């Protein structure tokens, strides 16, 4: 086979002596530099926004933290100061040695763990059924689940407290956990539904072809895929219970009072012990921060679950 020789076209020279190819390369270079500069400025703006958001969200917590190390007169300084003039641990000693504080921590953990477990145990199958069977009753149910979120908590809290008392569960963490589940369950069902939606049905069908039952496919294939989503849901359910105040106020007494109520008790009719209150609040936030850090990867995975669904 003979090869066709293409005539070589002499490169056109411009008035500057550069060929069009040179200009193209230069333009591409300029474009690339421009693009880089654009990216840099976008990144800078994003960093500024991120820092602003971080300061906005982080400052109250930092202020709380610094206040917990202030002396009594420093906590009420006019105008207020951000950093303590003199650092002290006295507030932590006061707060943690107050009667009922250690017990309230245990109660908070018990209540939050039970409430989270209850939420997951109920929300996972409910959300799976709703997303996979797509029945009209399922759609009604998922909308109805939101109704409890539309009612002011105090309207539920008082009757709930009476009901718990009448079944002999007054002043127990299990009663408060059930109450907290009424808050977290609707959110958990909605969250889990969105995570299950993101899992292709083909995965389950493949598992079924390999001999799995429907439940087996759910347990062995779907649950591991949505484990990030379960972690996110668990975190939200845990936080909902951990920080809840009103139900704890109405339903707990000697045996099951949780820490948010104890923290509020530093404000009395006769004054507010800022130092001890902030110290206990700072200590109370540690488990949640640790939990979030521990499950960070799962949470990120859960947050992005379904983000690439085609």
């Amino acid at each position, binding site marked *: 086979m003979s090869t066709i020789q293409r005539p070589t076209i002499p490169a056109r020279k411009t008035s500057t002596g550069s060929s069009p190819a040179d200009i193209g390369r230069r333009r591409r270079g300029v474009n690339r530099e421009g693009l880089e500069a654009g990216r840099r400025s976008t990144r800078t703006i994003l960093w500024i926004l991120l820092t602003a958001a971080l300061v906005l969200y982080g400052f109250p917590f930092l202020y709380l933290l610094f206040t917990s190390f202030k002396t009594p007169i420093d906590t009420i300084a006019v105008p207020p100061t951000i950093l303590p003039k003199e650092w002290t641990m006295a507030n932590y000693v006061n707060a943690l040695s107050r009667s009922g504080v250690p017990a309230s921590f245990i109660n908070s953990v018990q209540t939050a763990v039970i409430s989270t477990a209850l939420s*997951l145990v109920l929300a996972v199958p409910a959300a799976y059924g709703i997303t996979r069977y797509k029945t009209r009753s399922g759609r009604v149910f998922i909308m109805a689940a939101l109704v409890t979120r539309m009612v002011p908590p105090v309207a539920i809290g008082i009757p709930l407290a009476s009901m718990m008392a009448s079944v002999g569960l007054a002043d127990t963490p299990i009663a408060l956990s059930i109450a907290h589940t009424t808050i977290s369950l609707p959110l958990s069902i909605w969250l889990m539904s969105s995570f299950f939606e993101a899992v292709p049905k083909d995965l389950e069908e493949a598992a079924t072809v390999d001999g799995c039952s429907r439940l087996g496919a759910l347990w062995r294939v779907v649950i591991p895929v949505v484990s990030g989503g379960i972690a996110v849901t668990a975190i939200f359910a845990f936080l909902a219970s951990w920080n809840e105040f009103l139900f704890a106020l109405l339903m707990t007494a000697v045996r099951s009072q949780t820490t948010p109520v104890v923290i509020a008790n530093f404000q009395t009719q006769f004054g507010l012990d800022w130092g001890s209150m902030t110290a206990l609040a700072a200590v109370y936030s540690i488990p949640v921060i640790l939990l979030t850090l521990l499950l960070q990867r799962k949470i990120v995975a859960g947050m992005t679950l379904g983000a690439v669904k085609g």
Partner: protein
Amino acid sequence: MSSRKTTSKLAAIGGICTAVALVATGCGAGGPAPAESGGSSINVLVEAGGHAELQPIADQCKKDTGVNVNFVELPYDGLFNRLSSEFSSGTVSFDVAALDSVWLPSFKDALQPIDELFTDEAKKDIFPSLVREANVDGHFIGMPAWTNAEIVLYRKDLFEDAKNKADFKAKYGYDLAAPKTWQQYQDISAFFTKDGMYGTDVKGGVETEYLAHVLQAGSPMVLDSNNNVIIDNAASKQALDFYTSLVKDAPPGAAQVDWAAAQNLFNQGKTAMTQFWAHAYRQIPKDSPVYGKVGTAAMIGGSAGVAGVPGPWYLSVPKATKNTDAAKKFVKCAFDHNDLAIQSSLGLAARVSAFQKYQDQPGYESFKPLIETLNAPATATRPATAKWQQIVDTVLVPMLQKAVAGGDSAALLADAKTKIQALLK
């Protein structure tokens, strides 16, 4: 495979945690089982500050009567909600409750009469206004546990300063001393308002101090004995005009100043005088610039003399309790050993004799002015209406906030009268 293992691990951990939690839940971690019917253990519901007051009494009571007391502390704002919900349900988780005086009329139907505890001897040892307040519809339904009233706190170091004394006398023609009248209070406030300091504070965010001035001017507060609204009478206007006249000698933002703000300002050394609840004297932080430099005096007097609005708390026994005997034993015990509460962090009592026992001891200089204020003939408790808190929150405080911001006092009082009448209908 690894994700399956992770899932299994998570499930196992979750299962173990749940099992442990559920097992532990059987008794909770907060303390002993709730008081049982007919037992010698009772639950006492208190506002958080009240626990410290009652603990020494509870300890003594256990020795004397064998009644064991478990305290349930709740924040002040939540206590009313809790009481309302339990009283309305008919099932209570407590056997004794410490009630703010303004709640007695609201909860009177849910409380047991404790008339037998109000012997003649007991009544003689309780401030007269408190005896009147504890009696609702002919029955005593609460035993005073501790009481408080506003007194005058002033900067002793500034008042005793030779230059200040000379300058004051030269300007006003009388000696600089703790104020006894409205005029003196105004003069001293104006005198010390200089160089970044203020003579006093004006509290637009709370109503009690204004109401004390109404009593000092010779009128009942807001309602007369027949529950007619009299907030627009001459005395109320005179009191409001005096109250707002102090704004020029007070830190800016008077409309937002409440108890906490006023206490902070005084403890920071920003104000030379404050009218404040007596307990604050013993709560001045040791690192405060005014610590050890504060003097005390009885509440100032108007045309009707000295007057204050007491802030007592009462121990009451709910009708729904199954431990009436033990509950009443504790209430009696709290009265018998009322003086023990004075050594608590709050440092207040309800019996005259308890205050008198300590009044001459160092550190308790606030007690004589407190006794004088509480015993003053014009001193009176707040009107006994179930709507009182609503009147305060929706009418009195907003009215004061407008008044200290420069509103017309007559128009504001007339408007307040209309609103209160509507609330009471």
